[in-house]
């Protein structure tokens, strides 16, 4: 890989940030990555039985932690967390507050449709006058990858997706984003919406001080606005089970290659 442009050095923060900056971090609840995927109600609902719920990894490891780093570099930064969901999201948002963030908001809404969720966030963000809105690049349950771009359209704000690095210089952001077959560095003035992925920051574990502090941080519940859903889930289905592995002797890898060519017709 050839570097044409110097990649901004992350972690070091020599940059002059805009002071009193407000960041909104979108937090979503997802099943743990090892959760067993099963469905109920005639395969129309995800079965939460025995499932451990976590903060969507892209929201936590990358977007929230990067926001916290920006606040560590400049304590005048305010971080607000927002989640759209039922009361069962509260343990997740408390965990996010234990990592960092000043205040959290939950919009009471049980809707799964991305459009309805995005409209709630957009409406909240509009009244909050945020300089930056961070989302994860997708949630690991419905894999919609839609919220950031939808909020961008609703608020007519610029949007950079799949960001792997983020730097601030005054009122300007320098963002490295993934593109097909490589990376691109782009710049945009705030306010800006960014969807975050691996590279933005390193995973953190909340410490005891954070966990204790999170208990008393404000968590406000807000009534949802009414929006018509654009989609609905018809049903779920699990992939068919594999027929079973065909084992080949380690002495005969050429037999494997023959099978791949003649039987699987894959090479």
């Amino acid at each position, binding site marked *: *890989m050839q570097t044409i442009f110097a990649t901004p050095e992350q972690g070091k923060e020599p940059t002059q940030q805009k002071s009193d900056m407000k960041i909104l971090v979108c937090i979503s609840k997802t099943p743990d990555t090892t959760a067993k995927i099963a469905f109920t109600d005639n395969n129309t609902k995800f079965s939460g039985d025995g499932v451990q719920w976590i903060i969507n990894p892209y929201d936590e490891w990358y977007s929230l932690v990067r926001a916290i780093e920006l606040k560590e570099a400049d304590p005048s930064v305010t971080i607000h967390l927002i989640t759209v969901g039922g009361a069962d999201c509260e343990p997740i948002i408390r965990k996010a507050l234990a990592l960092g963030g000043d205040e959290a908001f939950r919009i009471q809404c049980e809707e799964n449709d991305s459009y309805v969720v995005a*409209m709630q966030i957009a409406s909240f963000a509009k009244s909050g006058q945020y300089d930056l809105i961070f989302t994860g690049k997708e949630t690991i349950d419905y894999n919609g990858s839609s919220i950031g771009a939808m909020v961008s359209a609703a608020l007519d704000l610029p949007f950079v997706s799949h960001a*792997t690095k983020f730097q601030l210089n005054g009122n300007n952001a320098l963002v490295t984003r993934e593109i097909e077959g490589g990376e691109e560095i782009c710049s945009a003035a705030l306010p800006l919406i960014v969807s975050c992925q691996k590279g933005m920051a390193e995973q953190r574990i909340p410490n005891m001080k954070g966990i204790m502090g999170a208990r008393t941080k404000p968590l406000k519940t807000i009534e949802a606005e009414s929006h018509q859903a654009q989609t609905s889930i018809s049903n779920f289905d699990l992939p068919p089970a594999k027929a079973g592995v065909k084992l080949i002797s380690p002495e005969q890898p050429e037999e494997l290659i023959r099978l791949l060519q003649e039987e699987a017709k894959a090479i």
Partner: protein
Amino acid sequence: MNILVYIELNEGKLKKAAFEAACYGGDLAKQTGSTANAIVFGETNEDLSTLGAYGISNVYHVINSATYSFDARAFSKMIAEVVQKQSSDILIFSNTITGKSIAPQLSVMLKAGLVTGAIELPKTSNGFTVKKSVFSGKAFSEINILTEKKIIALQPNSYNVSKGEGSAQVQSMETSSPEVKVKVESVQKVSGEVSLTEADIVVSGGRGLKGPENWGLVTELAQLLGAATACSRPVADVHWRPHHEHVGQTGIAIAPNLYIAIGISGAIQHLAGVNRSKTIVVINKDPEAPFFKAADYGIVGDAFEVVPKMIEAVKKIKQQA
């Protein structure tokens, strides 16, 4: 009905995902008795009339100051204008990084229900239902689109490309040129390598390879097979390989024809990203490795002994060919 397919150019070229989207749009037009047209942004040396052989009737080609670099907001505004002009009802995108950053914008701007990651043609006999993969490939879901206008983002490597006859009518189209607020400062391309999401064959390595110095085995086999290279999360985490090669639940999800996993145990998060591969081959010295349960072919053995022999065997068949 009137279908509009957004055809993505990658460095001015039509890539596999673009032909998949064209065919998907063309086949949906046949299914619903309508026409599929395409929209292309930016300069290209490609002959866009060839999209006719993939089911496209008209190609609307837009070139202006906003099409030179990618700003999702500006692109969305220009597409919305074309949709208005052509009274399109259904929009098709590729579910690539570009598609993911504009399709949801149009969903809001046009009040059109969106399904991203579609893997089949919609069912249109009763309502409009699109199948997509969810839970990072661990399950499927059928989604009803309830709005009059509809948007589908097609998952790469999920739809067959079939080339027929015909030539599309190419016309240049004017749109306004929205202000570009996200400016591209520089681009780094990993050249000479096969793109991971579009690759037919992927050769992937895990911790079983013991260190980055042993990756020659993976890259040599991949090169011989014309394959892309990938890795598991722990390998990317310790920087043996770059992050963009990480496949799995928190990396890239892929669905190649053939996936060869070397020294990867097959944790559930890894499987989630690769289990839509058509044929899976697992090389691992641990017979208890969970990956064998998800594999079609397997060798229980030491990668350092098995893979060089595989490389020799592939060289032999390539010579015969």
